[in-house]
C-alpha cells in the first residue's frame, strides 16, 4: 500500500512539474509576446504606410480563396477582398466542387463569364472544370474544379496565381482594408522573409457593410465570446511569443502571406492532412534549415482578418477535433525534427513544446479528471487539496486570458465599450469552468482518431454575416 501511495504521490509531482513547465512556457510567451506587440505598435508608421501605398514600391499579391459550401458568406467575403487598399492584387476564388449554390452566387454577384485559360500547372491538383473572369472586376478569377479538399483547392489557386506573393484566406473571412499593405511590406523590407501570419479575430457580432467591418462588437453567444478570449490569447501570447523567439510554427489558414516561389519549391500544400496550414509552415522551416539558409517566418499583430467562429457546440467540437488531428499529423510527418539539434530551436524547443504541451495536453488533462474518482475510491482523494489545486489551475488560465484581454482592449483598442471589456474579463473567469474541459475532451478523442479520420474535415455550419 505504501508503494502505491508513493507512486501516486510521484504521479502528482510529475503532473505538477508538467503544470509548472507549461505555465513557465505561457509566461515566457506572455513576456515575449507583449514585448513584440509593443515594439511593433511603436514602430508602425502610418506615414510610411501612406508612402508605400502611393508609390510603386510594393510586391503584387494573389489572394487565394478556397471555397466549398459557402453560399451564405462568399459574396460578402469576395467583396471585402476586392475592396482592399492595395495597389496591385488579384483574387482567385477556387470553388472546390461545392454542393450548394456557391458558384451560382458568385456568377450572379460578379457577372462571371467562362474563359479559356492557359496556366502553368506547377502543382498537382484535381481537374479544373472551368475558369471564369468577372465583367465587373478585372482582377477577379473564379476556378471551378473537382472536389479535392482545401489544400488541393489552394494548390489549384497557386497554379493560376501570377504574383510573387500569395495570400491564403478562408472564404468565410473578411480582411481589414490595410491587411495586405501592412503584411506585404515585411517582404519588401527583408528578402529573408518567407511567410507572414496576421491576427485572426472573430467576426461574430461585428457590424459589416459591403464586406467591410465597420464596428467590432462582442457577439451575444456564450461560445462566441469565449472564442474572442481564446483567439486573443492564442495570437497575442502564443504566436507573438513564438515569432519573437524565431520559431513560429503556425500561420493560420484564415490569413497568411507567403512568397509564391518558396511555396512552389517545397511542393505547395499537402493534401493528405487537415493541418495543411501548419504543415506548409513547418515544411518551409524545415527546408530552409536543411539548406542552411537565413530566413524568417513572422507573425505580425496588426494585419487583421475577421473570421466567423462556430456558434454551436457541435461545429466547435468538430473544428477543434480537426485542428488537433491536424497537429498530430504535422508532428508525425515531421517527427524527424523532434529533439533534433539540426533544426535549432525549432527541433529543440518548438516541436517538443507542441508535442508535450499541445498534442499531449488533453490526454494529461482528461486522465487527471478520470483519475479523480479512482483516487476517491482508493481513499486517496483529498477534496480540500484537489479544490485548491483546481482553483490554482483555473486562476493561472484566467490570468493569461486577462493579460491577452488587456493587450487586445487597451493597447490595440479593440472592443472599445466599457461593458464589452467588463464582459471579457468576466468570461475569462468562466473559461476554466466547463468550456475548457469540453474542448479538452474533444481533443482527447481526436488524439485517438488521427489515423482513422486522416484527412477528414467535417462540415462547418455558417450563420452568415449580420449586415
Amino acid at each position, binding site marked *: 500500500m505504501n508503494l502505491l501511495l508513493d507512486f501516486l504521490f510521484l504521479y502528482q509531482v510529475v503532473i505538477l512539474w508538467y503544470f*509548472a513547465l507549461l505555465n513557465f512556457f505561457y509566461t515566457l510567451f506572455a513576456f515575449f509576446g507583449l514585448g513584440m506587440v509593443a515594439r511593433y505598435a511603436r514602430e508602425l508608421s502610418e*506615414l*510610411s504606410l501612406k508612402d508605400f501605398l502611393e508609390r510603386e*514600391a510594393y510586391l503584387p499579391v494573389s489572394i487565394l480563396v478556397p471555397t466549398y459550401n459557402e453560399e451564405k458568406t462568399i459574396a460578402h467575403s469576395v467583396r471585402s477582398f476586392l475592396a482592399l487598399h492595395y495597389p496591385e492584387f488579384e483574387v482567385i476564388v477556387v470553388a472546390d466542387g461545392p454542393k450548394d449554390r456557391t458558384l451560382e452566387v458568385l456568377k450572379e454577384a460578379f457577372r462571371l463569364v467562362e474563359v479559356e485559360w492557359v496556366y502553368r500547372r506547377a502543382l498537382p491538383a484535381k481537374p479544373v472544370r472551368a475558369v471564369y473572369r468577372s465583367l465587373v472586376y478585372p482582377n477577379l478569377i473564379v476556378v471551378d474544379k473537382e472536389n479535392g479538399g482545401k489544400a488541393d483547392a489552394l494548390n489549384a489557386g497557386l497554379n493560376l496565381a501570377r504574383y510573387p506573393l500569395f495570400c491564403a484566406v478562408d472564404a468565410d473571412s473578411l480582411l481589414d482594408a490595410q491587411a495586405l499593405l501592412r503584411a506585404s511590406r515585411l517582404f519588401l523590407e527583408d528578402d529573408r522573409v518567407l511567410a507572414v501570419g496576421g491576427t485572426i479575430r472573430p467576426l461574430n457580432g461585428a457590424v459589416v457593410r459591403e464586406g467591410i467591418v465597420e464596428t467590432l462588437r462582442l457577439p451575444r453567444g456564450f461560445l462566441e465570446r469565449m472564442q474572442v478570449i481564446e483567439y486573443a490569447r492564442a495570437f497575442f501570447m502564443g504566436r507573438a511569443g513564438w515569432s519573437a523567439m524565431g520559431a513560429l510554427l503556425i500561420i493560420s489558414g484564415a490569413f497568411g502571406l507567403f512568397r509564391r516561389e518558396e511555396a512552389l519549391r517545397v511542393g505547395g500544400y499537402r493534401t493528405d492532412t487537415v493541418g495543411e496550414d501548419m504543415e506548409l509552415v513547418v515544411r518551409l522551416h524545415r527546408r530552409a534549415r536543411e539548406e542552411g539558409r537565413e530566413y524568417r517566418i513572422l507573425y505580425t499583430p496588426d494585419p487583421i482578418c475577421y473570421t466567423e467562429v462556430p456558434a454551436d457546440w457541435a461545429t466547435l467540437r468538430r473544428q477543434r477535433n480537426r485542428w488537433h488531428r491536424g497537429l498530430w499529423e504535422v508532428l508525425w510527418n515531421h517527427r524527424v525534427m523532434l529533439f533534433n539539434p539540426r533544426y535549432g530551436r525549432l527541433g529543440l524547443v518548438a516541436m517538443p513544446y507542441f508535442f508535450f504541451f499541445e498534442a499531449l495536453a488533453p490526454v494529461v488533462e482528461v486522465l487527471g479528471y478520470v483519475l479523480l474518482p479512482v483516487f476517491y475510491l482508493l481513499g486517496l482523494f483529498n477534496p480540500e487539496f484537489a479544490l*485548491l489545486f483546481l482553483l490554482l489551475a483555473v486562476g493561472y488560465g484566467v490570468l493569461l486570458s486577462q493579460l491577452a484581454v*488587456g493587450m487586445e482592449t487597451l493597447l490595440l483598442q479593440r472592443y472599445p465599450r*466599457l461593458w464589452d471589456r467588463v464582459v471579457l474579463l468576466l468570461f475569462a473567469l468562466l473559461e476554466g469552468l466547463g468550456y475548457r474541459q469540453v474542448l479538452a475532451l474533444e481533443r482527447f478523442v481526436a488524439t485517438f482518431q488521427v489515423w482513422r479520420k486522416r484527412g477528414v474535415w467535417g462540415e462547418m455550419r455558417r450563420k452568415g454575416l449580420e449586415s
Partner: protein
Amino acid sequence: MWRRGERLYALLVFLVVLLEGLALGSLVVVFSGRLFGLFGYPQVYGALWQALVLTGTALGLLAAYILLYHVYSASRELLDRKAYEDWLARFTEILFAGGSPPPPPWPREAFEALLDLREMLKGEFAERITEWLRQANPPWPRILKARLASRPLRLEALEALAQARLPETLEAVLPYLAHPDPVLRLAAARAGARVAQGQGLLDLAKALLEAALPRGALLEVLLLLEDRAEPVVEYLLSQGGGEEVWAALEAVGRLKLASLVERVLPFLDQADPELKAAAMRALYRLRYPPHGYEGLLLAALKDEREFLRAHAARLMALLGNDLAQRALWKALSDPSFYVRRAAAEGLLRMNKGFLAQAAERHPDPFGRAMAQQVLREAA
C-alpha cells in the same frame, strides 16, 4: 493604435509574471521536497495557499488596471481629440482667410494638426505651413541630438521631420543612417528622402551607402525622393554595392528616369543575374529599345535561369525588328510558361498578325496555346 500607459501595463505584466514565477517555483520545490520527505503536508498546503493568494492578487491587479485605465484613457483621449480638432480648425481658417498663427510655444496637438495639414496640402499653402513650422522652432531636431531621448521619442521625431519637410533639418537626420538600430536607420532614411534638397541629396546618397538597408527598403526610400531622385540614384549606380545598385536600377525604371538610361545599359553585361534582370526591367519600364545589345539579349534568352529569359523576351520586343521577331517566335517554345507568355505579349506589341500566325502554325502546341490566349485577351 498605441496608447499612452503602455509602460505601466508592461510593468504590471512584469510584476504579475514575477509573482507567478515565484509562486510556481516555490510550489514545485515544496512538492518535489515532499517526495523525498523533506517537507510535510502543512508546508505543501502552505505553498498551495500562497500560490493561490498571489494568483488572486495578480488577477485583481490586472482587472482593476484594465477597467481604471479604460475610464481614464477614454476621457483623456476625448480631450486630446477635441484639442486637436480645435487647432486644426484654427490653422485652416488662418491659412485660407489670411493672417498669422498664434505665437508659439504650441502644444503637441497643434503640431500634430499642422503636420497633418502639411501632409495634405501642396504648393503655396504647404510652403506657408513649412514657414510656420520653422518659426515655431519645433523640438524634433533637438530630440534627435539629445543623448537621453528614448527610442520611441526618436522615432516620433523622425516621423515628424519627415512630415514637416524642413530641408535644414537633414543634418539632424543623417547621423541616424549609421545608427546601430535598423528601425531607426530606416526611419531616418525615409525622413531624409522627404527632407533632402539640393546639396543635401548628395549627402543623403553618401549616407545611404553607409546605412546597409535591405534593398527593398532602399528602393522605397529612393521612390520617396520622386523628382529629386536623379543625383542620388546616379551616385548609387556608380558607387554602390550589389544591393544599392539593384535598388537604383529598379528606381530608374519606376521613376522613369530616362536621363540615366546610358548608365543602365552597361548592366546588361553584368555577371550578377539579379542586376542584369534589374537592368532589363528598368529599360523595359522606360520603353527603351537596347539597340547595340542584341547579342546580350539573345544570350539571355538562352540562359538557364527562367527569370532572365522572361525579362529578355519582354525587352526584346522593344527592338521591334526581324531579329526580335524571330527570337520571340523561337521563345514561344520555351519550356517556361512565363517566357512563352512574355514572348507572346512581345509579339502582340510588335506585330499582331505575326502572333496570329503563331497561334495557328507554331510547331509547339504550348506556344500555339499561349499565342491564342494572348490574342483572346487582347480582343
